[in-house]
């Protein structure tokens, strides 16, 4: 029951979102570092394939942004990062709630006997 596709997918989504949260924090910390290229985390495409193939377990991949750089060789854009940070936070809370809902239905099933 705890290894169902949906539980594994929720867990993978939480992992991926936490990685993205960390990457955004890293990018904003390095907003003035010369020659720093923004980190990008992708897990959605791997997760989509994993759910499609019936496993639900997917990792995340990290890459460097290829966006044009500023004069100092840095390409962190504060607006993009702030929006990504906010978006990731809300998604994280949403997935946490879904996870909570999953556990509360399990605990309901345990009680009815």
């Amino acid at each position, binding site marked *: 029951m705890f290894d169902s596709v949906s539980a594994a997918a929720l867990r993978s989504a939480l992992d991926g979102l936490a990685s993205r*949260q*960390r990457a955004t924090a890293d990018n904003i910390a390095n907003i003035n570092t010369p020659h720093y290229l923004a980190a990008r985390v992708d897990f959605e495409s791997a997760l989509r394939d994993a759910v499609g193939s019936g496993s639900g377990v997917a990792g995340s991949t990290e890459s460097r942004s290829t966006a044009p750089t500023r004069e100092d060789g840095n390409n962190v854009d504060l607006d993009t990062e702030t929006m990504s940070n906010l978006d990731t936070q809300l998604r994280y809370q949403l997935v946490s709630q879904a996870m909570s809902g999953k556990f509360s239905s399990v605990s309901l099933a345990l009680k009815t006997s």
Partner: protein
Amino acid sequence: MALFDAFRASGSGMTLARKWMDAVGDNIANINNVSRTDEDAFRQRFIVAQADDYDGGHTAGSAGGVKVAGVAFGSGEGRLVYDPTNVLADDKGYVKLPDIDMNSQMGQLIVSQRAYQANAAVVERARASYEAAINIGAK
């Protein structure tokens, strides 16, 4: 990847911004330092920022973030000012003042302050995320 990594990355960004503000404060405090013409003038301080664990893939328990790689010093050449009443003046009446541009310092002060605020905002959002995770399964 360790728990609460976003806090550590943002914390390092706040540390860097604070040290940068310290350096700017030091530069502005010494902007009117007078030296003899045969000595070096006050050298302005620069903070050297470097990304931490840039290509490490964050496997060794590092959250990335940023670190102060060192402090660089500006030129000690300074500029000569005619001030014959100064006790440090040479026989032609000149003293040396540091070559620090106040406008550049104020600009740096604003940029470092905004960087600090941006990092503090990330800490707050990361906190809300982690709180949601802590409450998984709570009634």
